[in-house]
């Protein structure tokens, strides 16, 4: 029963990773860049939620929506002013810019909101459902997190599979030149991808801080790196890959902490990543269809 409870904790943590990883993987799929500032957009989202809910006593739903709007604008602005001018630049330049942007956001947050820990309000409460005569408890926040992850995943699949914009995104991720020849505006599509990824980051920020309520300007960086790992694990560029990768990473991390050692849990996570990449370099669900000539 303890094992089951650990697995559920892992799935809940993994759901947060998965939501963040979706942002990484979508941006990578289309812009072919690693947006290392993504984790810090989560932090900004969490702060907006914090101020909206704890300081201005707004309804939590409104707080989350507000955070989504702010993060969407932030993500699109970052893309427009930091990454777009580098569209033709070597990928190393873009990578360094992304890391720079990450530090910029963290320092900006320190300046605006001080480095002191803010305790995120407990919106969902400490309630839990008890199963098997109380032997297995699942907190409401864990349930909400997993539910949110599944809903987001389904909506994104529908969006990329059926909508015109979603299909255009897939076309851009395969071949930008050919997409332009179809009349698809590649710049708008990339901007749209950042918007969606950043809105998801806001949700992730809320969920993350509801589960781990200590909010600081560096709150987003470690989950950001883990989610990036999850995206690579599942096959970067693949949306189902980010989902599977995120969940697996969360479960492995919690199980490693429970049965091996808390200190080593991160090391185990990254070791599994190395093994997966050795066996399948494209990640678990990464696909590669060879081109016919």
């Amino acid at each position, binding site marked *: 029963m303890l094992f089951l409870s650990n697995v559920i904790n892992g799935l809940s943590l993994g759901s947060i990773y998965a939501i963040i990883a979706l942002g990484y993987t979508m941006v990578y799929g289309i812009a072919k860049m690693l947006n290392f500032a993504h984790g810090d957009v989560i932090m900004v989202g969490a702060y907006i939620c914090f101020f909206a809910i704890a300081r201005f006593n707004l309804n939590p739903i409104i707080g989350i929506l507000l955070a989504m709007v702010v993060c969407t604008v932030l993500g699109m602005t970052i893309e427009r002013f930091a990454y777009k001018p580098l569209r033709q630049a070597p990928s190393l330049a873009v990578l360094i810019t992304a890391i720079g942007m990450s530090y910029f956001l963290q320092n900006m947050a320190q300046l605006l909101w001080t480095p002191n820990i803010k305790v995120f309000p407990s919106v969902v409460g400490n309630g839990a459902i008890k199963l098997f005569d109380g032997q297995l408890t699942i907190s409401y926040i864990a349930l909400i997190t997993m539910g949110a992850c599944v809903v987001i995943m389904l909506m994104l699949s529908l969006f990329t599979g059926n909508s*015109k914009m979603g*299909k*255009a995104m*897939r*076309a851009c991720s*395969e*071949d930008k*030149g*050919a*997409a*332009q*020849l*179809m*009349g*698809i*505006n*590649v710049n708008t599509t990339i901007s749209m991808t950042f918007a969606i990824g950043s809105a998801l980051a806001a949700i992730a920020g809320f969920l993350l801080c509801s589960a781990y309520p200590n909010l600081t300007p560096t709150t987003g960086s470690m989950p950001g790196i883990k989610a990036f790992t999850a995206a690579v694990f599942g096959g970067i560029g693949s949306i189902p890959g980010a989902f599977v990768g995120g969940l697996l990473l969360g479960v492995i991390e919690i199980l490693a902490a429970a049965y091996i050692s808390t200190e080593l849990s991160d090391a185990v996570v990254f070791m599994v990543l190395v093994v997966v990449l050795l066996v399948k370099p494209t990640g678990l669900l990464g*696909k590669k*269809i060879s*081109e*016919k*000539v």
Partner: protein
Amino acid sequence: MAMLEVNDINVYYGSIHAIKGVSFEVNEGEIISLIGANGAGKTTTLHTISGLLKSTTGSVSFMGQNLAHVPAHKIVSLGLAQVPEGRRVFLHMDVEENLEMGAYTQPNSTIKDSMELVYERFPRLKERRHQVAGTLSGGEQQMLAMGRAMMSKPKLLMLDEPSMGLAPLLVEEIFDIITTLNKAGTTILLVEQNAQMALSIADRGYVLETGQVVLADDAKNLLHNDSVRKAYLGG
């Protein structure tokens, strides 16, 4: 006035001067062939017309409109479509989705009818409409690339080496379809290394060499031109 007028364009890749003052024109209803060896600048020329590359001088105008400041994604809706070299179909998308992408600039209500037209022209695509493009054969991918371009209802269709890597029988099939499309009212600009085939269906032709037009004539004359025969038709 010609449908497409390319006037003294110069294109650079960094410091490499790829296109050196190329000019030519395509009249409505014609099939024009642009022939030349590897590296002559044929694809670069097409990409410049489509707006993927920019010329430093001169102009490209389509039906009287200067394309200099029209972004690549707006050019399709003017009625100018390209079937790119190497087909470049979306390999992870199925046949139907590829066709939908071709109709990206078209109103949703017309997509079904355009698709039926494409399927009529390429029955094989209809059989495979739910198959992922990456699993199609080279010839089928070429058909898909052509069908995809047709979805935007182009007035002028540019094809970049449609015969590349295809078996002779398939090449003939593809060229038959090009002639049929032309008869149905689409103007064609055809870029080819297979000069024999390209000139045999064309009205006029241009020979490109190292970024310059070195010959321009009726296709019939080019087929019998000594230097063309030596360089491109095997003597």
